[in-house]
C-alpha cells in the first residue's frame, strides 16, 4: 500500500535498513532506485490513478479544483525528490526535506507514561511549494519518515509577486498576508528586491523552502511555541493564494474537474481489485 512507497526519495539514508536492535538479520536488501519505487506504486485513490497514468499535467491542476491529496506519491510524481546532500541552489524544482526538530513527548496511556519522539519536518522545492509535517513515534527514523510523508501531503502552492516594478522574476509575496496557529499571529509583508528574509530562525527556513527571496515578518503572540510559529508561517504562505488581488478579478470560465474530464478513463480498464476477483 502506501507503505511500499515510503522507500522513495529523500535519499538512501531514509531507507528501510535497520541493522541495530530489533530487525536486521543481515539480509542484503537490494537498493531501491527512485525509478523502481515510483514504478511499484499502486495508487488507491482515483486521483492517484490519474496521476500515475499521467492524465494530469501538473500539480497546479490539482490545486485549481482543491482536490484532496491522500497519497504522497502524487506530489513526488510532479516534483522529484532531491537526493541527499543537494545544496539549496541546486535543489530548485526538486523536493527537498529537512528536519526542523526532534523532541521527546510524554503520552499518558493505561500502562503508564510513554515517552515518544516527535519529528517536525519541512519539505519544499525552493520555487513555490511548501509543506509542513509532524509525526510521533518510538523511533527517530520512523518519526522522520512519517513526518516527511505528512509534509508531502500538505504541500501547498505559494504565490510570489513584486514589491514595486513588475519586471524580472517574482521575488516577494504579492500582498500583506497573515497566518495564525494557536496564539501566534504571523504577518508577512512584501519587501523590495535585495532585502532578503527578515525573519526569525525557522520562519526564514520556511520562507527559503517556499522560494520567497525577500520578505519582512511581524510576529505577535507566544512566539516561544516554535511549533505554532512555524505552522503560522505556513498558514500565511497558504493564504497568498487565498487573497483575491485586483489582477485576478477577471472572470474565468468554469472547466470540468479531472474526475469528470477523465471519467471514461476511470470507468474503463482499471477495474478495482474486488471487481477483478469477481470476474476472474
Amino acid at each position, binding site marked *: 500500500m502506501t507503505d511500499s512507497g515510503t522507500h522513495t526519495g529523500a535519499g538512501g*539514508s531514509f531507507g528501510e535498513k535497520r541493522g*541495530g536492535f530489533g530487525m536486521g538479520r543481515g539480509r542484503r536488501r537490494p537498493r531501491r532506485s527512485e525509478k523502481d519505487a515510483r514504478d511499484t506504486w499502486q495508487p488507491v485513490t482515483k486521483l492517484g490513478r490519474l496521476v500515475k497514468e499521467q492524465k494530469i499535467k501538473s500539480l497546479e491542476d490539482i490545486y485549481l479544483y482543491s482536490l484532496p491529496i491522500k497519497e504522497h506519491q502524487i506530489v513526488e510524481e510532479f516534483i522529484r525528490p532531491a537526493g*541527499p546532500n543537494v545544496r539549496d541552489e541546486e535543489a530548485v524544482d526538486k523536493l527537498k526535506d529537512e528536519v526542523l526538530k526532534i523532541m521527546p513527548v510524554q503520552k499518558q496511556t493505561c500502562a503508564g507514561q510513554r515517552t515518544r519522539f516527535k519529528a517536525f519536518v519541512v519539505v519544499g522545492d525552493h520555487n513555490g511549494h511548501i509543506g*509542513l509535517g509532524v509525526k510521533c513515534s518510538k523511533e527517530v527514523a520512523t518519526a522522520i519518515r512519517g513526518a516527511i510523508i505528512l509534509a508531502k501531503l500538505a504541500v501547498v502552492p505559494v504565490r510570489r509577486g513584486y514589491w514595486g516594478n513588475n519586471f524580472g522574476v517574482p521575488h516577494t509575496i504579492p500582498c500583506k498576508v497573515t497566518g495564525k496557529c494557536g496564539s501566534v499571529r504571523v504577518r508577512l509583508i512584501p519587501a523590495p528586491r535585495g532585502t532578503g528574509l527578515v525573519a526569525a530562525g525557522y520562519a526564514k527556513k520556511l520562507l527559503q523552502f517556499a522560494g520567497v527571496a525577500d520578505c*519582512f515578518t511581524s510576529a505577535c503572540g507566544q512566539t516561544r511555541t*516554535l*511549533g505554532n510559529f512555524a*505552522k503560522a508561517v505556513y498558514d500565511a504562505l497558504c493564504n497568498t493564494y487565498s487573497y483575491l488581488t485586483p489582477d485576478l478579478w477577471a472572470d474565468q470560465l468554469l472547466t470540468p474537474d479531472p474526475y469528470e474530464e477523465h471519467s471514461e478513463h476511470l470507468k474503463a480498464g482499471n477495474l478495482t481489485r474486488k471487481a477483478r476477483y469477481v470476474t476472474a
Partner: protein
Amino acid sequence: MAAKEVKFCEELESESESKMFGPLNFDEVGTHSPQVTYSEVVCLLCDNIFNIPLSFEIFVRHLFEVHNLLIEDVQTMDNLPEYIRYWRDKFKQTPIEEIVPAIRIDSSHRLFFMLSTLLEDDKKLRHRLKLEHVLKVQEFERTDTSYTRMCLFCKLDFEGKRVDFIAHLENHHNMQLGNPQNLVYIEELVEKIAETVDKLICMFCNRLFPERMVLKEHMRKKLHKRINRRNSDYDKFFIVNYLESDKKAKNVNREKDEVYTSEDSLNDDEEYYDWNEKEDVIICLFCDKRETDINILCLHMEADHGFDFAECMKEFDFYQKVKFVNYVRRQMHRKRCLYCDVAFTAVRSLQNHLIEEEHCKIPDIKVFDQPEFYFPTYENDAFLYLIDDVED
C-alpha cells in the same frame, strides 16, 4: 587644476564612507557546540553564583561544606545548570528537609542531604535532561558537515556528514549499523568498531582471529558485519534506549506504534503545541542591553535613554518604522548622533551626548525615509521582527 582634482578625490572619499557597507552581525553570546557550554548558575540554597564548568569543583565543595548537600553522580550529569535551576525553584517553595532524605555519614551529628535517583522527581528530571542532551547531540551530528575519517575497510578519506559515512559503510562494505537517524555518538561508535576490528576480534561474536584477512572472511560469510543486539556495550549508541529510563529497548520495540489514529488529525494544529524554545534575544537600539520581551526593552529605552518608541512611531507605517530602526542602527554603528549627525570616537561619549542633549528623538523624516534603509543594517535583527508588537 591639480587642486580641484585633489578636492574631488577627497569629496569622493568622504562620500564613500557614508555609502552602504556589508551587513553587520551582532556579537554572539554563548558557544554553539552542545558539548561545552559555559553558564552562570546560582546555588540551590543560597545566592552565590558559580560558573559551570569552570568552577565545578569549587561548587561541589561549597555544597558539601556549606549546605551539607551531596548530589549523586554529579560528575557524569549532563546539563547540571538546568538540574540546579529545577531544584532551586523547588526548594523555594518547600524547604529541603521535607523533600530530601537525610543521612548521617560519620559519627558527628551533622545531617547530610542526598539528591539521588531514590527520589521520584529526581529520577524523572535526570532522565529528561539526559534525553534532551542526547537529542541535542544528535541534532548537531545530523547537520554538521565537518566529520573526517579514513574508512575502516577501503582507502576512502571521508569528509562530510556522519550519516553519509554510515551510508558508505552500508552500501560499499555491507556493514549494517542501523538507520543513521536512530544513532547517536556516531564518532565514538565508529572508533569502537575500528578498535575491535584492529584487535582482530569479530564485532558480532567476539571471537579472536589470527589474521585480518581471516577475520574479514569470517565477517563476510557469517554476515557478522553488524551489531549484536545482545551486546549491551553498544546500547548507548541507539537513541531508542534513552526513551524509558528503566525499560530495556526490546520492551519498547515490542510496543506497537499507534498508527491507527485517523490521517486527518495527525497534522492538526494541536500537534504543534508542545515545541517550546527560548525566545530570541532583542538588543536595545542605543546600548547593549538584551531582552527577550520587546515591551520590556521599550520600557528600558524610555527609562534609560529617554526614548518612547511607541509614542514616536504612532504616525508611521510599517515600512517607515523599519527604515527608522535601520537608520538608528547605522548611526550607532558609525558612532554618530541620530538627531544632529555629530560624530564621536567612542560609543560611551555618544551615549552621554544622547542623554545630555536628549537627542534620542526622531529627526526629519527625509533623513531616514530613504530606500537604502529598507535593507537591514544587522543580520538577524530581532527588533525588526517584533516592531509591530510594541504596545502603547
